[in-house]
């Protein structure tokens, strides 16, 4: 499973699972494995050459991963070996008690909810699950939730709020499911209601994008007091392919759209749209899932620890002020705006301000 080193898995099934820039890295790893095996079977000492390849491997990893393009980041976020929600549950959660169903229509497998002990806290865990094998993937609709998924998440979050249990949301979805049933059952209304209710649930909410943060389907469980994105995850208003189709009239410009839409963690941090980036091990979460999980756990522990010290009123005021301040615009009028004196006046051409500059 995901806790195995990736080289074994990738080596066994050829190169089909690999991203282009990973191929030389995996070749080196296989070379090391082969030499180690030969060393054992022949009794000869290859340690010098192995050490040398290991050194080259580290350099290659650094080179490939230090400067991923936005598009490469998207590819790593979608990597077939990347740890998924249920992998993180296995690695981090103690006593996970899954709770199914939205009590209205059905149980959406793309959305996983349950009580658990996580990062030293008793929490309600909510997250998208994409599925690993073909069958599981299709059961989970590749992480694309239906209205019943969003309503299930809300129902469990309300349960948590009732008993003062903080909420941890892990986001990993290409987007809400675009289908006939989803529209018939009010996918837009379901997401809208989640956004509204999440803004006023009186318990700490933290959210982290662990893979894909696709549009409204991601935001539907990610209105939170602290928001993070993992180092090789992305969070975007639209998928790069969808953005390219609309803006460049061709999905072939996906790589370009990925850059223009500023969906990578450093851009999101710079735009003050997220609070933190959760580091991944060198070469991405899929190369050392446990290390990635530990980093995620550490972030959750820190974020929840801080928030739990706040009284509900202070927590909700803080959440509203964060949301209220989201945005970047300016006014050309010299007059105080006629309404809501909160927006600051800015002159044309000045550096735009964003959410963190909101008046507290």
């Amino acid at each position, binding site marked *: 499973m995901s806790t195995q080193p990736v080289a074994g898995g990738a080596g066994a099934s050829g190169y089909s699972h690999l991203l282009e820039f990973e191929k030389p890295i995996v070749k080196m790893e296989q070379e090391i494995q082969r030499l180690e095996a030969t060393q054992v079977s022949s009794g000869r000492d290859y340690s010098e050459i192995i050490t040398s390849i290991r050194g080259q491997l580290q350099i290659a990893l650094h080179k490939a991963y230090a400067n991923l393009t936005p598009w490469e980041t998207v590819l790593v976020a979608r990597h077939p070996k990347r740890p998924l929600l249920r992998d993180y549950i296995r690695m981090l959660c103690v006593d996970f008690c899954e709770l199914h169903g939205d009590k209205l229509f059905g149980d959406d497998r793309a959305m996983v909810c349950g009580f658990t002990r996580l990062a030293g806290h008793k929490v309600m865990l909510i997250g998208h699950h994409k599925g690993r094998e073909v069958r599981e993937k299709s059961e989970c609709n590749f992480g694309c939730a239906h209205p019943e998924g969003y309503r299930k998440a809300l129902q469990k979050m309300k349960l948590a709020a009732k008993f003062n249990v903080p909420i941890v949301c892990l986001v990993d979805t290409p987007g*809400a*499911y*675009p*289908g*006939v049933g*989803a*529209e018939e*059952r*009010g*996918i*837009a*209304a379901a*997401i*809208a*209601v989640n*956004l*509204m*209710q*999440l*803004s*006023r649930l009186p318990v700490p909410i933290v959210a982290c994008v662990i893979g894909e943060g696709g549009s*409204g389907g991601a*935001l539907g469980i990610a*209105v939170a007091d602290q928001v993070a994105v993992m180092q090789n995850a992305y*969070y*975007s*208003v*639209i998928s790069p392919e*969808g*953005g390219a189709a*609309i*803006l460049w009239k061709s999905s072939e410009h996906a790589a370009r759209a990925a850059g*223009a*839409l*500023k*969906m990578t963690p450093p851009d*999101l941090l710079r*735009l003050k*749209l997220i609070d933190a980036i959760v580091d991944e091990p060198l070469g991405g979460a899929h190369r050392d899932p446990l290390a990635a999980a530990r980093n995620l756990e550490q972030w959750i522990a820190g974020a929840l620890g801080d928030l739990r010290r706040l009284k509900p009123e202070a927590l909700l005021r803080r*959440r*509203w002020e964060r*949301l*209220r301040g*989201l*945005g*970047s*615009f*300016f*006014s*050309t*009028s010299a007059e105080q*705006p*006629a*309404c*809501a004196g*909160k*927006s600051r006046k800015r002159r044309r051409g000045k550096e*735009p301000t*964003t*959410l963190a500059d909101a008046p507290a």
Partner: protein
Amino acid sequence: MESPASPRRNVEVPEGLWIRCTKCAQMIYRGILEEELNVCPECGHHYRISARTRIGQLNDPGTFEEFLPDLESSDPLEFTDRISYKQRLEEVKAASGEKEAIVVGKGFIKGRPVIMGVMNPMFIMGSMGAVVGEKVAAAAERAIADSLPLVMVTCSGGARMMEGMVSLVQMAKTAAAIARLDEAGGLYIVVMTDPTTAGVAASFAFLGDVTLAEPGALIGFAGPRVIENTIKTRLPEGFQTAEFMLEHGYVDRIVHRKNLRSELAKIIDYCGK
């Protein structure tokens, strides 16, 4: 409303004195169409109209007072697709005579004071960026402060791509603002017009205490073409229309444009304290 010097398009109908209805192909005299509030007298097709035209139709003459008229996008992503976002904004501003895709303010409907927001399909398809989010939030705050109903006429293709994630988070901001209005006991009426989709549908549009829709309006989350690509078949007739949404329980009433003013007044009276 239009000056002859700036031939702005305020209504999405073909040019000319006689117009062939884009829906039923009947020839209509422009004067008649305008008298009918830009609804085809033959087939009832509701044409898209600009925010100013709508404000004129809904409010008592001369009563509308606009808030925050000078807010403009700061292009937070320094975005460029085929042209730069800055250039696109300049072009759209010139063509529409508006600075953004929504107009908010205070008006009167048959003597009843309301806070009103009206989205503009002629401004990058009514898309929501930071300015739209700010104005919706400000309108909700003003409705709370003045204890007035908030009437929101939605008309939008969704979040504005050119502002990326800054646009997406406006969904959360506007929904949270509506939550506060709700907690304050304020009345929030949404009028969904063609189109009300994606990020706007999935935030402040679908949070009304009462949800009205104009006949035939496209209302939904995912674009019809995206869904067709997923399911690999043609969509059924009438999918994602106002009537479809009524049928599935997401819209309270479908209201003809000529009745909108009186229906709004009626609902405000029923919910009055």
